[in-house]
């Protein structure tokens, strides 16, 4: 990308090594860099002082030190309200509906590449940058989103919901690097974040225990209910549906001749449906809120590879678009853990085609 066309860049800093190195690389490449950090919503503890684990006072201080070291301005931007609404409320509502959410995706779409990008543009920047491991390419006036070069760190899954309008104003300086190379750069440049551990999911929880978090907010979700098999036979009792996910084997507390897995979560009847491994596979699912990175919904069915959760092995599929931003996705071979609420992301090789929310596995046609 021509740096002259992106004179001023806002880098989203987190106080971690990835965003720090991304900032350093941008400075070295000649951009006019402005550092920004989001203050996100966090659950308040008894002391009313708990911070979001992604933006603790210590993390803010580290980000500020990186900015000082690189001699760039630093802004702390309050995003509590939008984060609470778009990410935390979504997280609770999805579990309440018996689904397994992935809050990082609405966070990227609405907060990082939504609100922060808007602020960056308001600050006079042409674009913003983050420390994500993903690549961008321009083809025929359109942006393509690609997997990061480091297969172990590729974060394109979390970015699949970005629009052309967003991608046109985004840089990913780490896309061609491996995590090891990034750490080496950090040490070399003397960045104060070189040895920071990986950041954590569910950053808004005080202690990482999402079950406690949900139980405090929606106590009814933790009513005990029946564990049954597909024929309706009750095998035991569960302690609240949010404790389970599709394909889970451990922690069911049900004795049986063969190992049992979670097949379905039925919030309507507060029941957990379990069965042996051979009842687990499904070869088709319905996906909602489909988004195509190109901005255009394909008219005809097409082949792709799909990941049904972050770090899932890509599987060969045929995608049949449906009206109302939906699609049927048919897997060449059955998948054991098609989980409602998780995002299914479509790829063509390294190129992200788009994705959507898994609604349910499709019942086999009679």
């Amino acid at each position: 990308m021509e740096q002259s066309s992106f004179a001023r860049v806002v880098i989203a800093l987190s106080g971690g090594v990835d965003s720090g190195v991304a900032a350093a690389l941008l400075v070295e490449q000649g951009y006019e860099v402005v550092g920004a950090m989001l203050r996100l919503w966090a659950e308040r503890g008894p002391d009313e002082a708990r911070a979001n684990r992604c933006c603790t006072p210590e993390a803010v201080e580290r980000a500020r030190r990186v900015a000082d070291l690189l001699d760039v301005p630093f802004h702390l931007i309050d995003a509590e309200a939008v984060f609470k609404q778009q990410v935390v409320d979504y997280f609770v509502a999805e579990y309440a509906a018996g689904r397994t959410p992935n809050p990082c995706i609405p966070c990227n779409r609405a907060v990082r590449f939504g609100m922060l990008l808007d602020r960056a543009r308001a600050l006079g920047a042409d674009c913003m940058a983050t420390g994500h491991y993903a690549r961008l390419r321009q083809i025929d006036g359109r942006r393509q989103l690609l997997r990061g070069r480091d297969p172990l760190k590729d974060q394109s899954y979390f970015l699949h919901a970005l629009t052309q309008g967003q991608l046109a104003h985004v840089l990913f300086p780490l896309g061609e690097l491996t995590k090891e190379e990034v750490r080496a750069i950090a040490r070399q440049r003397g960045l104060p974040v070189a040895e920071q551990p990986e950041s954590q999911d569910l950053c808004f929880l005080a202690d990482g225990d999402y079950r406690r978090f949900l139980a405090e907010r929606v106590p009814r979700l933790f009513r005990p209910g029946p564990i049954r098999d597909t024929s309706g036979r009750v095998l035991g009792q569960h302690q609240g549906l949010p404790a389970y996910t599709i394909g889970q084997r451990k922690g069911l507390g049900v004795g049986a001749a063969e190992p049992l897995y979670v097949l379905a979560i039925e919030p309507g009847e507060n029941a957990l449906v379990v069965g042996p491994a051979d009842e687990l596979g499904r070869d088709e699912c319905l996906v909602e809120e489909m988004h195509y990175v190109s901005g255009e919904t394909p008219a005809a069915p097409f082949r792709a590879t799909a990941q049904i959760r972050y770090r899932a092995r890509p599987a060969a599929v045929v995608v049949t678009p449906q009206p109302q931003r939906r699609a049927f996705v048919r897997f060449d071979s059955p998948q054991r853990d098609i989980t409602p609420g998780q995002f299914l992301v479509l790829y063509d090789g390294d190129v992200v085609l788009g994705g959507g929310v898994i609604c349910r596995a499709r019942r086999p046609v009679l």
Partner: protein
Amino acid sequence: MNKPERYIYLDHSATTPVDPRVVEAMAPYWSEIFGNSESSHAFGRAAANALEGARQTVADVLGCRPAEIAFTGSGTEADNLALRGAAWGARRSGRGAHIVVTPVEHHAVGHTADQLVDLFDCEITQVEVDEYGCVDPDDVAAAIRPDTVLVSVMAANNEVGTVQPIAEIGRVCRERGVLFHTDAVQAAGRLSLNVAELDVDLMALSAHKFYGPKGVGVLYARRDTQLLPALTGGEHERGRRPGTVNVAGAVGLATALRLVEEEREAECVRLRALRDRLIEGILERIPESRLTGHPTERLAHHASFAFRGVEGESVVLNLDQERIAASSGAACAEGEPEPSFVLAAMGLPQEWGLGSLRLSLGHANDEADVTRVLEVLPCIVAQLRASEVGDGAKLFRTSCDRAQRRGR
């Protein structure tokens, strides 16, 4: 401008006044012949006689057997029964779950098809339409698969008036043994409804679109059509539509259908002349205006337009001020003007697609009404264009808010 005394009604595609002859025919069935048509006593038999007479009348117009006619509560209900019943029947018998529709169907079909994805895991294919909103029967043929159980294509589009090649599509479906449903709600009194000639298996009609009463519709379902009832209850209408039958409504529908069919040819000639004067006059007098829908293959009473950069709903509101009742196909979402889904499917560019103006003629309209429209409409469009330069967003929002309050 002088306000004329008379209100001019140009929205006959939305609904029509009940023909006085229909009111007269219905009159005995409220308090005199009020029996439940399922009752076996004299009151019930009288009602049943009236109902079966109405059924025969409808069957005569459609060229089918009376047993193939079921009275429903509306055209929407008839469409729902047809799609849901056919899809469920096919699914239960394991014949497949693939349905072919068009992107310009009325919501009674479009939303029902979308729901079938949820109910029965049906798979939907939308065949494309051309710039006039017209479906190519070859595209329907290409979309049909071995597991296709139903094709649904409307006889004529409500928003842009385009008439579809129903007989050709019917032939394609018949050759391949696939059920064919058509939403003919806009077609009655304007096109032939002969189901044998059209090769139609399922057809929906609504009385209030052809000078009959509101609250009554018809579902034609060919005798050997496998159709599971989407409503459950008693055995009324051969189990296809449980619920005590609206005998007065059925009589009204049948009378209205017979009348519009008898008068169809003459009335179409008369309305087509008015329509063409309307079209020519508007395209001539208003710069950057275009006809939406097909120039010739369109309903005789139907004229629809797009005005570059002008929102249809704003035109409608201003026409209302001038005592002219018209409508727009615009859909408003979150207070922002959004292109109509029909115009979008036809590939109309966004600046043209902010909603068309629909003028649909009927029995009471005459030359003077057309003259009046040609007098006021150019001024309205010019004024809107002038004002929208300054404050377009506000104007859009105001009119959309109003439209939403009206529950559109």
